[in-house]
């Protein structure tokens, strides 16, 4: 079988993991109880779970595999980093063995490997991309779209990026810094923060940085959450009461305890593939758990877009190399194949008025 692309991922919650196991067991068998799922999942070696066929509005087709690293959702902390890198390596080996031409690294797979590409197995003709460039593109597009929908003037905004020194965070900073009034960079690594701040300041951007979010002197009114958190635990502290907040984490960053009644929250970094996507076996709605059809995380869609483009190259590699030019290039490739920003939504459902751009196909 010809494998154009492979998508390496993992489940962000036990509920999602249980749903994957339920599909594998088939509808005729009783779903396993939660305690059995928690006992069994950590022992499953990384492997292909299903085939994924995608179409392009330009008429191209691409065949791929979804490979799950089976990282247990409660083992994303730093304490498990070596174990998890080993899992991603094994998942990568599965992709290589299957002859995948390009591999996209989803969620923590990308975070674990983005600075350690040399740790991937011998690659033969397989190339790897973190997929972060398209994630950045969709986050930036989402922010712009929400500002348009709500009549906010982005140029007068104070933008806070949580996880600013990561590949996605720094890419968002480079793309949005020229468009906002002031930018606040939050991350744990102070040295990297200073480096990014210096880069942005050289372009005349007003920058403030802090390792602790409570230390910013001004309140942000636009926030991007792009931190590598093992679970939704982020409490933002001081932001404008009506702040626009893009949660682009996988797992999600924002704690369910974060009470921000006036804030407008949406999930960022997601795209929708309009040329069609089929799973075999049918994992539709299980591997893509979104309120709209054919919505996928940008990091995975990047590999799909490059496969449809027949451009098998490691488009996104390393950390801190995402520029506005590269983002624009990736947006053009994706759009050529009908891969666009997904309709926006949050934990409560679709964000009102965000559907009109692609209404004719997004609600199929």
């Amino acid at each position, binding site marked *: 079988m010809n494998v154009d692309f492979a998508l390496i991922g993992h489940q962000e919650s036990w509920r999602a993991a249980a749903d994957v196991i339920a599909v594998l067991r088939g509808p005729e068998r009783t779903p396993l109880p939660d305690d059995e799922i928690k*006992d069994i999942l950590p022992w499953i070696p990384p492997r*292909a779970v299903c085939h994924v066929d995608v179409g392009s509005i330009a008429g191209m087709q691409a065949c791929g595999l979804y490979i799950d690293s089976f990282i247990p959702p409660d083992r994303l902390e730093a304490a498990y980093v070596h174990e998890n890198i080993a899992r991603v390596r094994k998942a990568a080996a599965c992709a290589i063995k299957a002859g995948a031409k390009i591999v996209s690294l989803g969620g923590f797979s990308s975070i674990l490997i983005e600075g350690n590409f040399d740790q991937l197995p011998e690659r033969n003709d397989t190339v790897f991309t973190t997929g972060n460039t398209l994630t950045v593109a969709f986050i930036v597009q989402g922010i712009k779209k929400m500002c348009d929908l709500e009549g906010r003037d982005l140029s007068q905004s104070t933008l806070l990026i949580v996880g600013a020194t990561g590949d996605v965070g720094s890419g968002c900073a480079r793309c949005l810094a020229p468009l906002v009034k002031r930018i606040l960079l939050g991350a744990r690594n102070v040295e990297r923060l200073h480096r990014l701040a210096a880069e942005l300041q050289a372009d005349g951007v007003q920058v403030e940085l802090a390792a602790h979010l409570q230390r910013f002197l001004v309140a942000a009114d636009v926030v991007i959450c792009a931190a590598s958190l093992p679970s939704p635990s982020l409490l933002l502290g001081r932001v404008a009461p009506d702040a626009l907040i893009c949660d682009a984490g996988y797992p999600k960053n924002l704690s369910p305890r974060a009470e921000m009644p006036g804030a407008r929250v949406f999930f960022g970094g997601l795209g929708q593939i309009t040329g069609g996507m089929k799973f075999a*076996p049918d994992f539709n709605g299980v591997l893509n758990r979104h309120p709209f059809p054919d919505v996928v995380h940008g990091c995975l869609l990047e590999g799909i877009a490059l496969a449809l483009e027949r451009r098998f190259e490691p488009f996104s590699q390393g950390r801190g190399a995402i520029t506005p030019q590269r983002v624009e290039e990736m947006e053009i490739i994706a759009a050529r194949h009908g891969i666009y920003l997904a309709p926006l939504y949050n934990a409560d459902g679709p964000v009102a008025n965000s559907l009109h751009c692609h209404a004719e196909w997004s609600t199929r």
Partner: protein
Amino acid sequence: MEPVIEVNRSPMECTSVSITAPIWQDILAQAMTGELLAAMNYTSLSEMCDDPAEIADALEHAQGERGHAAAFAAEGRKIGVDVTNNVDAKHWKRLREAFLRCIAERDFIACLIVQEIMLESFAVASYSRVGKVAPGTLGKTFARIAAEEEDHVDHAMSILRAERARDVQRFDEKVHRLHLDVMTTLAQMLAKECKDGHCEVCHHTCVKPALFDISLSAAELRGASLQQYLKTLDMLGIPGEVTLAWVTQLPV
């Protein structure tokens, strides 16, 4: 039910494991029963073979498994417990019957799949885990036998790979059919709790809840065994997405 072999008794070599000795006694009884069943399977296989080299090979394997059983019995004596066995215990009996069906069909490949892929995966993984937590020579014996059982898997792998290359679909269908038969029974044995009554090997109540006292758990033994099985099927070349579905469909 009489044990298949009678173990020579020697003076007890009591060690510091006396508190947990009843747990080790049950673990050793399960391991010894498994080894004797394997010895019986290899003996049956030798009776089916025509090639003198294959006959000798099967008999050598049978002898090796009996040696493992004797080694487990000896480890029991060292800690002052009598290690019994019961190859007619309900789960083990079903496994033996599944193997005998392959013999009746004179299906050498099916015999290898059952013994070397399925039963040995279980043995390699569970002995390895036990070897890590068992004290002294008990741990070393489990670890050594796990390594020897792994060699059996390697031995069968080249034969089975060649067989699969001849007709992939037929081979994979055969493995699946045997999986449904044998692995369903193994999964029931490996379940966290024995839901259908006493296993007929443990001396008193089920040993599984007590495994926590020796830093083990039934869930760990099951997980490690199924992981080893999946890896072995990977080595055969059966697609990972197919074998994953097989394993997730097993009873818990």
